């Protein structure tokens, strides 16, 4: 077995995973337990390099489970040795179970990272292909860790902050642990106050009603339009089907000033009716675009058969086209619901009466220095959870719908 640059790369890979592992796991430990620990990155890197060396020094096809286990053990041992049994700068006696779990996860994580990256890489010299493969694998691994962290961290902070009290927040901003010793009414105090004092139940209801009605109105407008653009011939059809999305070149802020003026004079400004006129205007073009793309993909023979059987166009739409287009309808409805639920600008500019606030407008009203931060985060959670649940439930439809038609182009 020759030793060459392959070993150097392996050591670097191991060091990288060791560093990342110690930082991530150390920070997570602090966030979850509230202990004032600081991971020692250099020690982590050394431990990771040691673990990677264990893997690499065995020829690629000879790496068995035993090698993997040895790598984990060596990484853990090196970590403990180089940090004098204080891998997170705090004595092991504090929250020993959590620290033990953290140490084990460190060993498993860094060794797994090194193992996957070093698959097939020899300790001697490797071909250009293999070197680039290693580089790509490292990038991908780091990428996974990076993207998952940046997506998870804000939401974790959002939820955990809503469960804390004001003093706790100011005292220890890194303590995002959940104090299970509290009673549920203490833990969820922010939420209880939101619903009893800040009228959030009503906001929730109003947002739901506005979003559902927006979906209905949008569908009523866009289904006939999409059918016309996809199935009927008329002058200007191609231009229309390609340029319907150009409407979105007009910034919403440009519309706010005239609409504010006109709606004030018509008495529609501080009303939900006004919102229900504006929201469909912003969603109909994209709904039409998505639906006409899908309609075009449906075989026209069925509709022609229906026409020959004596159905008029409306009948064809209801009895033939719509049943076939259910996935597209579902994804369009979902997308429009999401747009209406999340909408901020017009709700903010137009609604003054707290009795008709939507959730967006309600949460913004929590952003004052008189309202504690945990209430703001609790409001954010209340606004996010429904749309997340709906989205996760119907995720496949949304992904299909948003990308249908783009794949062919």
């Amino acid at each position, binding site marked *: 077995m020759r030793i060459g640059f392959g070993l150097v790369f392996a050591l670097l890979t191991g060091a990288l995973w060791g560093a990342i592992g110690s930082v991530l796991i150390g920070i997570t430990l602090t966030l979850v337990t509230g202990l004032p620990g600081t991971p020692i990155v250099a020690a982590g890197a050394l431990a990771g390099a040691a673990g990677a060396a264990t893997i690499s020094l065995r020829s690629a096809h000879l790496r068995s489970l035993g090698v993997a286990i040895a790598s984990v053990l060596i990484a853990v041992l090196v970590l403990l040795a180089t940090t004098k049994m204080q891998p997170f700068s705090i004595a092991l006696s504090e929250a020993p179970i959590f620290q033990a779990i953290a140490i084990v996860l460190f060993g498993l994580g860094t060794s797994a990272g090194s193992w996957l990256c070093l698959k097939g890489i020899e300790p001697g010299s490797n071909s250009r292909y293999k070197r680039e493969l290693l580089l790509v694998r490292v990038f991908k691994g780091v990428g996974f860790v990076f993207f998952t962290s940046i997506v998870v961290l804000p939401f974790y902070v959002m939820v955990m902050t809503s469960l804390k009290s004001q003093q706790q927040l100011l005292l220890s901003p890194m303590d995002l642990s959940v104090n299970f010793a509290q009673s549920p009414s203490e833990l969820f105090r922010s939420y209880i106050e939101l619903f009893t004092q800040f009228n959030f139940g009503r906001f929730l209801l109003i947002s739901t009603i506005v979003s559902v009605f927006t979906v209905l109105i949008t569908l009523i407008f866009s289904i006939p*339009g999409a059918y016309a653009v996809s199935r009927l011939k008329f002058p200007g059809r191609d231009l229309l089907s390609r340029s319907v999305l150009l409407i979105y070149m007009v910034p919403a802020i440009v519309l706010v000033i005239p609409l504010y003026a006109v709606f004030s004079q018509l008495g529609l400004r501080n009303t939900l009716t006004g919102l229900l006129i504006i929201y469909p205007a912003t969603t109909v073009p994209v709904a039409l675009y998505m639906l006409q793309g899908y309609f075009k993909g449906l075989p026209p023979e069925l509709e022609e058969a229906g026409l020959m059987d004596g159905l008029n166009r409306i009948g064809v739409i209801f009895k033939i086209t719509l049943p076939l287009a259910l996935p597209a309808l579902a994804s369009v409805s979902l997308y429009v619901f999401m747009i209406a639920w999340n909408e901020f600008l017009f709700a903010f500019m137009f609604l003054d009466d707290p009795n008709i606030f939507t959730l967006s407008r309600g949460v913004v009203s929590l952003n004052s220095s008189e309202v504690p931060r945990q209430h703001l985060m609790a409001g954010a959670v209340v606004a996010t959870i429904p749309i997340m649940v709906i989205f996760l439930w119907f995720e496949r439809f949304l992904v299909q719908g948003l990308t249908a038609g783009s794949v062919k182009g």
Partner: protein
Amino acid sequence: MTSHMPLGGEDKKKLPRPRKGLGPMAKKEAILAFQMLLPTFAIVFAIVLVPLLANFWISVKPVKLADLRAPAPVVSERVRGDMDVADTPFPIEYRLRGSSRAKPISDIVLLDTLPPGLSITALDPACTANGSNIRCEVARLEPGERKTLTISVTATAQFAAAPVSPRGSKPDISGFADNILTNSEFTLDNFKRIFSATEFWNVLWTTLTYTIVGTLGALLFGMFAAQLLNTSFVGRPILRGLFLFPYVAPVIAVAFTWVVLLDPFSGTFNAILVRMNVVDAGINFFGQRTAELNFFGLVVPFPMALSTVIAFEIWRYFPLSFLFILARMQSISTDMYEAAEVDGASPMQQFWHISLPQLLGILSTLFLLRFIWTFNKFDDIFLLTGGAAGTRTLTVDVYEQAFAISNLGAGAAVAVVIFVALLLFALFFFRFLNQEES
């Protein structure tokens, strides 16, 4: 039989000519299509196109926020003397003034009804009476002018016993005032104002930086994330759903979460940085205009708040690029990759020569769409910083001028600039695309 059969040239003029325009069937279809599209046209016309034109209109008029409420006459009614003494006249005074301090009101008509039991003894010369109904006319009220109309009434014995205040019935007053929105007063001051201020060029520069860096960043991150999830593995659907969170969550939720997360004193991110000994004290991510960075002795002013806002933009919108790029990637057939593997091409080479050319189409579409959307973005920056610390883009400037400084005309002028800039960009982009294709 033979002599009537059409033969060659001589009978060409007897053959029916092809119709120009639409035949009756095609016409019916076109009318039906128009009917089906009518609601869409109507709502888009009313809510998007008309306000867009109205915005152009407002931008050339000196309109302030207060002008949205047209000047109107205001009246307050006072009763002097005693109502419960019979047969002694007491006056009722109507005090008029205009609601605007700058504009006159003309053709004012005041209507009121007196309660029964009061008889009119003397009428102000501007008023006439019809039984208990009073009608007063004032030709013109200058700005700031106050005018009092007095009517003297006498109570009967029954009224004096149980007086009903004449103030119970509110007077109806109407007048005509020049509405700045509809008169023919025009001005180019709004445009002069915004272009002459040096801060306009700062705002433009900020907008361009924000848009270009944000768009490119979202595309790059989206591509990276798509590469990660291109091969199937255990847990891929979970990760794919997870990566969409920043886009699906409401903007208020994520914006405020970022503000709390990056708070310089009580924010978790700063606490992590301090704990890991990266910095000594918390960084004011959203409040600091520039941070001085030391690069080997060279002091570089780094736009802190703007970069943080751009980072938020990339974080929030990379999922959309990721989704579209991933969908496109998964429709690329694996044959080419297999052939390249056989030929010994390395992963980087495969990406550069096979994946990238196929993605150029979706990448350019995404660039166009994201550029336009990011250029028009308002909610995010407004919620994160309110436009402070060097993050004021053109859209935030519209809000600032129209509602914070209350100059609707200037706000509309900035909105015109935004629209024209986007139009130019779209034109250049399509010309560039056409050149590329040919």
